């Protein structure tokens, strides 16, 4: 199957328009149409690990819901694993796994093992295949001691590992992850990331990762798709994105007293709040020199440096 490799996710001119009815008076209702997704084009090859990012309300979830057969597109063409998501919903469900970081699909009051057993039946996974998959996932995600614990007693990190296993017991070709590391501690994040990298490498599972955590993207994805205003704003390698955007870092200084905006070469004040000022400076510039520069002229109480987060990178994509 190497000659003609068709993308496993193909979206062409995909759009989704909602009609919202808003109450404006006692009886009056105003109709507004919202274009959540407009003219979105995306092709994901089998075996890719894709970072799918964008600000809240950009159309990420709406498009993922279309990819998974939950929402029907208003216009455009969509194929996932060669299937039409809404029409072939049940068939598609067997080829995809979905993990919503915020909401577990595990059975709250029952041992983890029981949720897995139900999925075994629902997805009609052959017994031998199921046993092998369960064994592998339990080992990789360190679930052995948790199998008999009711899900409600699991920590957030443990539950996420459980959800990951649950989404993969039927060998899906595509795994969609929505904020899989949200709220997890450093150790759990590391376990999840390592697992995803290995899943992608060893099993060839296509992964679409939605996250606000830039670390997730940096550690896992080579290709990043930025969605903004319902359409693809950037599609390419992470390094290229970073170079193109050249997101500034932010230096936050606490001064002894409020002063007008600090004027130093190589940095610009973006915000002032009493004695605290925010200065943007290029990512590659020397932060220590900048701090020394300011300390020479003003009385400094405290400083901190922030890396650009995803929201900022995306904002810069437009303004820069």
């Amino acid at each position, binding site marked *: *199957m190497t000659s*003609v*490799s*068709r993308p*496993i996710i193909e979206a062409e001119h995909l759009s989704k328009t*909602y*009609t919202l009815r808003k109450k404006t008076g006692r009886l009056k209702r105003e109709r507004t149409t919202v274009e959540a997704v407009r003219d979105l084009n995306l092709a994901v090859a*089998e075996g890719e690990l894709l970072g799918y990012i964008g600000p809240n309300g950009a159309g990420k979830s*709406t498009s993922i*819901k279309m990819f*998974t*057969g*939950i*929402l*029907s597109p*208003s216009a455009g063409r969509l194929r996932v*694993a*060669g299937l039409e998501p*809404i029409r072939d*919903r*049940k*068939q598609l*469900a*067997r*080829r*995809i796994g*979905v993990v*919503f970081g915020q*909401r577990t*699909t595990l*059975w*709250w*009051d*029952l041992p983890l093992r*029981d949720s897995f057993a*139900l999925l075994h*039946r*629902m*997805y*009609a*996974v*052959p017994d031998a*295949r199921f046993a092998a998959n369960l064994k592998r996932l339990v080992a990789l995600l360190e679930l052995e001691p948790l199998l008999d614990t*009711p899900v409600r007693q699991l920590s957030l990190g443990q539950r996420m590992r459980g959800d990951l296993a649950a989404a993969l017991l*039927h*060998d899906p*070709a595509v795994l969609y992850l929505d904020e899989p590391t949200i709220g997890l501690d450093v150790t759990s994040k590391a376990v999840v990331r390592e697992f995803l990298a290995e899943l992608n490498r060893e099993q060839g599972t296509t992964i679409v990762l939605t996250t606000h955590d830039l670390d997730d993207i940096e550690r896992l994805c080579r290709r990043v798709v930025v969605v903004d205003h319902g359409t693809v704003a950037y599609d390419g390698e992470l390094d290229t994105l970073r170079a193109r955007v050249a997101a500034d870092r932010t230096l936050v200084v606490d001064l002894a007293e409020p002063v007008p905006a600090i004027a130093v070469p190589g940095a610009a004040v973006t915000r002032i709040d009493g004695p605290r000022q925010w200065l943007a400076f290029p990512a590659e510039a020397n932060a220590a020199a900048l701090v020394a520069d300011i300390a020479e002229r003003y009385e400094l109480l405290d400083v901190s440096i922030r890396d650009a987060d995803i929201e900022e990178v995306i904002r810069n994509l437009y303004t820069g």
Partner: protein
Amino acid sequence: MAEQPFERRFEQRTPGAVATYLYTARMWGRSAMQYRASLVLVMVNSLFMGSLELFGILVVFGNVSSIGGFSLPEALYLYGTAQAAFFTSDLLFTGTEYLAVRIRMGTFDSLLIRPVGVLPQVFADQFTPRRLTPMIPAFAALVVGLAKAPVHWTLLRAAMVPYTLLVGVVVFGAVWVLVGAFQIVAADASEVMNSVTYGGQFMTSYPLALYGRNLMLFLTFGLPMAYVNWQPTLYVLNHADPLGTPSFFRFAGPLFAAALWGVALLAWRAALRHHRSTGS
């Protein structure tokens, strides 16, 4: 091969509607069993409430000898068929009542990503053995009423008893589907449907003659809940219809049930389409 580039990993078929229902209901039932003390208390409570209503009927008959032309045993039988059918449907299909919450919380979507039917998963939602206890006073009324009522038994009359229950469960089942469809479309006004479900339960529990001619006409020809248990009970107890309808009306239940299911499934499909296009 070129048409199907993505390997189907295994060929076994996913569960059908009944299997999906049973698997899901079993999980919910076992979840409910995790809180045994609470379960027992709620079951005792609902047994008490059901019995209290039955006691109310006895009190009324302490003062009058017949209601709507029905003697005490006859009224008990009618009441029993309505309650037994309603609570059986409640046990089996009432999961649709929780859809509004699922829509608001966004957890309905997790049913859509499974390779099985949506409706069976919804029917089984929040299944709990708690719903077994209200059936005890219901069946008690039915059995006692039948035993004491002056029924001239024939084979057809005997067959009409389980038939009445079956039609009742099927009709109420369709009502639960309608409830589900409504909850998806109007998640913020979900209580409106209570008038249909619990109203239907109430309406069918007492002799229709009690409600007066106009309401009787409506329940026979408008929203024909009369066929659930009123018409077949008229036959079993050998009563004439106060409206003077022809005798084949006694057996029209399945027609009504089939029509109602047709409407309910259309509404359900429309509701799913609505959800797919709005996401909420």
